[in-house]
């Protein structure tokens, strides 16, 4: 699909076709990122679908998704390229036995065949029909030094390998960066990017997400799930559940063949929503102490149903 023929509506529509529900604000930003060729920095709480949108986009644009998962200590060697040392060494040993031309060996072992492409080089060298989607996931986990390096790559989309020369991108990759905000991203990098903060979904949006992903869930139960999730997100938990948890829970309930949520089911399946012992304990306390009235919450007021 050609990015130039897109509109905000069509972005929203093609994402929905792949079961990604996105509001107009997010669609606008994604659309702008596609047409302007500017990287998009997505922030938001864990599990609101930051990574997912890049995956889905790669799918609908029929292009390759290249993912670079960041972690502390990630360096250029792991992100960009590395020479295949064992292969190089074997080649040298072989030539020693056969008394080959040393000069030639050296040029050969520093050729493309001996190069291990890491995600960034792969994105730049990609020769598919469409520009690939490059997902740089959890950039906040990488070191500051890596960020500076990334800045350089993202500004001209070309890489210089001393032994080979400069490699420039054939298609400018569509770049998505995600961050969980474990630290602030440097201003210089932010300035190169469009920015969007993905909120927890509203009741309506979450309902749409559940029914889109799991058409077999009954409307009433989907509403109950949403009402519960909306409520607990307002409460004080160590780790507030995201959309990923909602979907986990919904699929668990489907597997259990439940058609209706009652307080017993909620307590039984809470492991899908809360992943910390303290949080489970806290929920228990709230329910037992009547601060959280499950019955009333699950029955719901009529205007919520409408």
């Amino acid at each position, binding site marked *: 699909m050609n990015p130039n023929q897109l509109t*905000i509506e069509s972005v929203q529509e093609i994402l929905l076709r792949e079961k990604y529900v996105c509001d*107009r*604000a997010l669609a*606008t*930003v994604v*659309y*702008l*990122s596609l*047409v*302007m060729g*500017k990287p*998009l*920095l997505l*922030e938001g709480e864990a599990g609101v679908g930051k990574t997912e949108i890049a995956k889905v986009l790669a799918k609908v644009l029929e292009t390759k998704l290249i993912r670079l998962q960041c972690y502390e*200590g990630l360096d250029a*060697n792991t992100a960009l390229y*590395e*020479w295949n*040392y064992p292969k*190089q*060494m074997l080649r*040298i*040993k072989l030539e*020693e036995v056969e008394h080959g031309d*040393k000069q030639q060996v*050296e040029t050969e072992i520093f050729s493309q065949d001996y190069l291990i492409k890491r995600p960034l080089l792969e994105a730049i060298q990609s020769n598919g029909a469409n520009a690939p989607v490059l997902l740089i996931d959890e950039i906040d986990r990488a070191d*500051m030094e890596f960020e500076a390096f990334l800045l350089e790559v993202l500004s001209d989309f070309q890489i210089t390998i001393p032994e080979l020369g400069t490699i420039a991108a054939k298609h400018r990759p569509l770049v998505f960066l995600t961050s*969980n*905000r*474990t*630290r*602030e*991203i440097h*201003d210089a990098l*932010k*300035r*190169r*990017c*469009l*920015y*969007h*903060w993905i909120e927890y979904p509203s009741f309506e949006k979450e309902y749409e997400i559940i029914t889109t992903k799991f058409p077999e869930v009954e409307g009433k139960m989907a509403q109950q799930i949403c009402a519960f999730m909306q409520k607990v997100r307002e409460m*004080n938990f*160590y780790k507030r559940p995201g959309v990923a948890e909602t979907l986990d829970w919904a699929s668990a309930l489907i597997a259990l063949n439940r058609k209706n949520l009652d307080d017993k089911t909620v307590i039984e399946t809470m492991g899908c929503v809360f992943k910390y012992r303290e949080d489970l304990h806290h929920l228990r306390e709230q329910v037992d102490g009547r601060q959280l009235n499950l019955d009333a919450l699950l029955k719901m007021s009529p205007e919520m149903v409408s």
Partner: protein
Amino acid sequence: MEVTPETVAAAVSSVSSARGKGTLPNVMAFARALKELGVKVSLSQVLDASRSVEHVELAEKADFRMLLRANMISQKEDFPAFDMLFDCFWRELSYERVPMETMRIEGTPTESQAPEGGDEEGGLEEAFAETLAKENLQLENLEEFSVPTYSPQELMNRKDFSEMGVEESRAIARAILLIATKIATQISRRKKLGRKGNTVDPRWTMRRSMKYGGEIVDLVHRKKRIKKTKVVLLCDVSGSMDCYSRFLIQFMYGLQNELWGVETFVFSTSLSRITHLIRTKDIVNALEKISGSILGWSGGTNIGRSLHTFNRNFAPSMVTHRTVVVIISDGWDRGDVSVLEREMQDLKRRCKKIIWLNPLLASENYEPLCKGMQAALPYLDLFLSVHNVNSLVALGRTLQKMVA
């Protein structure tokens, strides 16, 4: 700077002269108004914003809002300021009445913007750059001072730090800088290549072996990088800490300016982040800013609530298993002790170490009897005194060991 309808209106009116017909001057004026509200916007962002205008239907105000926001704002904390300004700014212009053609970037620029002849795109950018450079100059001259908001519950005081004893404060500043520099150099040493170390670096081993015809003679190792530990400072500035607060502010300032990755907060009945206020190298200015903008300086204390705010809003993004949290307080707490205890427990789980600095600890007959202090004690890794320069030196050493 506090963003209120008044300051927004003031920002809009202050740039009204720069506004004209068409998108360009207006987008630029908008960016300038954003700057007045204390939001950082760079030239390239403004350029990109106005370039991207052609991609959306401008009649859709919501889309236009997202366009400007995605381009100009890069942290969610600035969203409220942006939204208020957007509503105020584009309403005043009566957004819908501006003819579509003039809103588009490729439409004829107004006379003042268009350089005669020349390529349009380039000319446009130049015009942009010039105007913005001028604006930047003006803005720099216009030093901003934050206006504190008023809250009846908290005893508000504008502390004048310039009253600080000159000799005393200089000695402290020197001592602090020394300690802070030591700590900083200790932990920012980078990963180095060397003959000793615990991992082999194949890249360099291979490289070195070339001169022996591919025979590996030297193994090149990579030394483990000493991890830069983040430090979070939470400083009590309530009434009971009054005689120490000047001293503490010096400490926070010194540490933050020498160390990479320090976040600084002050709290009394509520918590405020002051990292950005003391990022400057100019201490006098920094002190003025802080005394001007902190709510409840010298008021009462609610450690539990302040910690709760911290744990909820800041800890997820700032505290990792490598973070040392330093709390500076005397532990006199007027809040709910059970809250304090729970929040300490929560914090303890997130971070590497909690150090509590208590200025009262130095006095001979002090025992941590007050309820707040007792509740916190089980969760502390270190309980130290900070009452003079010597105690700070001791603290510096401890921190050094801890983060090395």
